[in-house]
């Protein structure tokens, strides 16, 4: 079955430190990959996406992610986090042949402490 695993449910980090949120997906020939962010009591907004081309994808708010096909991973990184990055982060995958739905990870709660 198609699945997405976010390896950490909670990530605490100090302000200005680097952070990596990890995402793995079950193998498939062709995938599209997404990271969404959800601030408290809000809906989800797109951080970045990989559709094709360069495996390093840059998104909003200084985040970037790297698509690694051999390791079926799409980890999210930021070199220096701010208090305002405290939020829930979701990884999602769309598989070729499934033209409608996204498969979601369970989310990673990022807590940035002063």
């Amino acid at each position, binding site marked *: 079955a198609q699945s997405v695993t976010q390896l950490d*449910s909670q990530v605490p980090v100090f302000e200005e430190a680097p952070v990596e949120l990890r995402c793995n997906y079950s193998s498939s020939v062709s995938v*599209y990959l*997404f990271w*969404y962010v959800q601030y408290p*009591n*809000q*809906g*989800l*907004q*797109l951080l970045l*996406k990989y*559709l094709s081309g360069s495996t390093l994808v840059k998104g909003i708010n200084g985040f970037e992610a790297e698509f690694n096909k051999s390791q079926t991973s799409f980890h999210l990184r930021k070199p220096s986090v701010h208090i305002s990055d405290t939020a829930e982060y*979701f990884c*999602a995958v*769309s598989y070729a042949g*499934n*033209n*409608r*739905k*996204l498969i*979601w*990870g*369970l*989310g990673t709660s990022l807590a940035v402490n002063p």
Partner: protein
Amino acid sequence: DVKVTQSSRYLVKRTGEKVFLECVQDMDHENMFWYRQDPGLGLRLIYFSYDVKMKEKGDIPEGYSVSREKKERFSLILESASTNQTSMYLCASSAYGGQGNEQFFGPGTRLTVL
């Protein structure tokens, strides 16, 4: 700017009441989705619709129904609300095959059933 709106941000209902949650998108998207979000369980798909009057069950359809009479509007109905339906409800939309099935989200409705 793309927009998905939901009829209420917060809603309090009593057990046994019939509850309507409304979602409207202005992007002419074919696909619309209803999710529920609970701590530790991520986003779970309740129903989705791929065209007017067309719908498919998601992972947790029990206790819910949906209606899509117009392309821009997708309603979630709780026929007889129960306390275990207290949750955050998120609506999303996407274009068929567009941008890897990227979904656009509304702000969410936090429903409390007493």
